[in-house]
């Protein structure tokens, strides 16, 4: 039986050939090259010169590198932690309160509205907020002035004290819709009788939220947390468009730091080391998350 199935499966390997060749060319070879280059000094022309771990020792002593990782930690809060928690709460409110008392239409319309920022291209998000937060002709400062709160106007993206918080706020705005949609679709799996039973037992909304909602959508919870965290670690576009990592590196993130070294400073070896560290971090985090998720599902 086993022998038979392996022979009948043999003919399928040929279907993998285009995918394997394409992945080799676009993913495996470049990945190996980057890791190799991270052990060299290279300007992008001529041949790389082997320097061993020099780039890495330099990296771990580089204040900018640590700053970029500190910034990314705050962006994980803005892009993963806050949207996941707030999204969980809002999804429950929409599903278990709004839909019940005001009907499906309201819940659906609100959900679509919250999701809207997610469909915009990253660069466009940057332009919209770059304009709203612009110190001279931006909408936010103009609004503050017109309602007599002129004292609140700031150079939101140009002042090192505020730039990172401004970017964080923009990212919360951008991300919030994704967990809401994911969690609401998770909630629709839940048997409504469960809620009815809890209702009859006299459980209040908050109790139902904690005991049923949070418990039932654990799978979605993990998926959302993994994907948003990884998205935060990879963030590039918004930072490029909004602040270019500035002012004075206040919003520098690893991917932008690598980009600068590759294409502005021609320090390809150093840039490769930065991206290699970032990659290792992402892959390790992803596997830790997957393990946790696996364990949570087993214990069910």
């Amino acid at each position, binding site marked *: 039986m086993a022998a038979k199935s392996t022979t009948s*499966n043999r003919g399928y390997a040929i*279907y993998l050939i285009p995918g394997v060749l394409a*992945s080799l060319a676009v993913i495996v070879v*470049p990945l190996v090259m980057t890791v190799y280059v991270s052990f060299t000094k290279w300007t992008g022309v001529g041949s790389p010169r082997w320097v061993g771990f020099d780039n890495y020792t330099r990296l771990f002593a580089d204040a900018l590198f640590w700053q970029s990782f500190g910034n990314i930690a705050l962006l994980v809060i803005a892009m993963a932690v806050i949207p996941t928690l707030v999204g969980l709460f809002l999804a429950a*409110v929409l599903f278990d309160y709004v839909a019940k008392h005001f009907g499906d239409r309201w819940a659906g319309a609100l959900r679509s509205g919250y999701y809207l920022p997610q469909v915009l291209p990253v660069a466009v998000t940057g332009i919209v907020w770059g304009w709203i937060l612009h110190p001279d002709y931006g*909408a936010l400062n103009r*609004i503050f002035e017109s309602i007599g709160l002129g004292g609140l106007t700031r150079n939101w993206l140009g002042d090192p004290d505020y730039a990172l918080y401004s970017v964080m706020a923009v990212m919360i705005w951008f991300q919030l819709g994704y967990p809401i949609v994911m969690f609401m679709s998770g909630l629709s799996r839940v048997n409504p009788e469960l809620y009815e039973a809890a209702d009859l037992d006299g459980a209040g909304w908050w109790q139902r939220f904690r005991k049923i909602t949070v418990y039932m959508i654990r799978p979605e919870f993990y998926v959302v947390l993994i994907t948003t965290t990884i998205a935060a670690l990879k963030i590039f576009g918004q930072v490029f468009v909004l602040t270019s990592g500035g002012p004075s590196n206040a919003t520098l993130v690893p991917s932008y730091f690598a980009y600068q070294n*590759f*294409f502005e400073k021609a320090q390809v070896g150093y840039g490769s080391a930065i991206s290699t560290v*970032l990659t290792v971090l992402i892959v390790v985090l992803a596997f830790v998350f997957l393990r946790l998720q696996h364990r949570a599902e087993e214990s069910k």
Partner: protein
Amino acid sequence: MTVTATLAEARAADDKSPRAAKHRDPVRFGVLAALVVLLLLMVGPLLVVAVNAVKNPAEYAADGPLSIPTSLYWDGIVDFWNRVNFGQKLWNSFITSLVVAVLGVLLSILNAYALGIGRVKGRVWFLVFFLVANLLPQEVLVYPLYYIGKEIGLYDNLIAIIIIFTVIQSAFGTYLLTSVYTEFPKELLEAAAIDGAGKWRALWRVVVPVSRPTLAVLFTFFFIWTWNEFFLPLIFLISNDNQTVPVALGVLQGDRMMDATTTSASALIGILPAMLFFLLFQRTLTRGIAAGAIK
């Protein structure tokens, strides 16, 4: 996919329940009001952009961003459109996204056919590979790709972007589609085999038609993701004629020629195609996100 059906049933049951008609207390409307305020915060920025894209700059200077324009002013949009030759960018984005979506789905089908249905040896390792490929930050691939692209004459060429994104998107597609094909009903394949269909015919006559809904979701994702891509197109497409929409808009930031009207005009014409796709694909999208998307 059955998820939406259950959802509708659950809601229908709810509407009929007596609780829905129970006493209306002010708390209820307080909650709704809070949610509507939040909605305004989410959608408001886009509305402000739309309003100011069609507002005369003089009027903006006088009345600020929140006033309703007294007359529609199209010059901001027209000027910007002509200045960046926006039609060309739209076409570049469209053709790139379309080709990537088609090729990416095809490549995902082939991979998933071998891994999910064929269960070839080492399938777990292939799947781990595609999962990791999916996680990689593009920064770790960009410099070699840029270097190789230059060497083989594909730098500043849409074909390079098409090849790269076909592979990157199909890593996700393979991962998702393999899990779908692992559950593919064996009887259908056996029936095809009895009818004398080889593996190639079985793939196109049985497997692909049956999995069409999933393929539609993948196509939609690939199209929109490719449309929105910024980093690699920014590196690869340097000449004006080759830029995609996000790159053209992104590199204009910080340009001294920009003022409130031009900036919001540029933002608006970046928003509109995205909104169009959102409306066109809304059903597939929400369904697909429900199917457990990884991005």
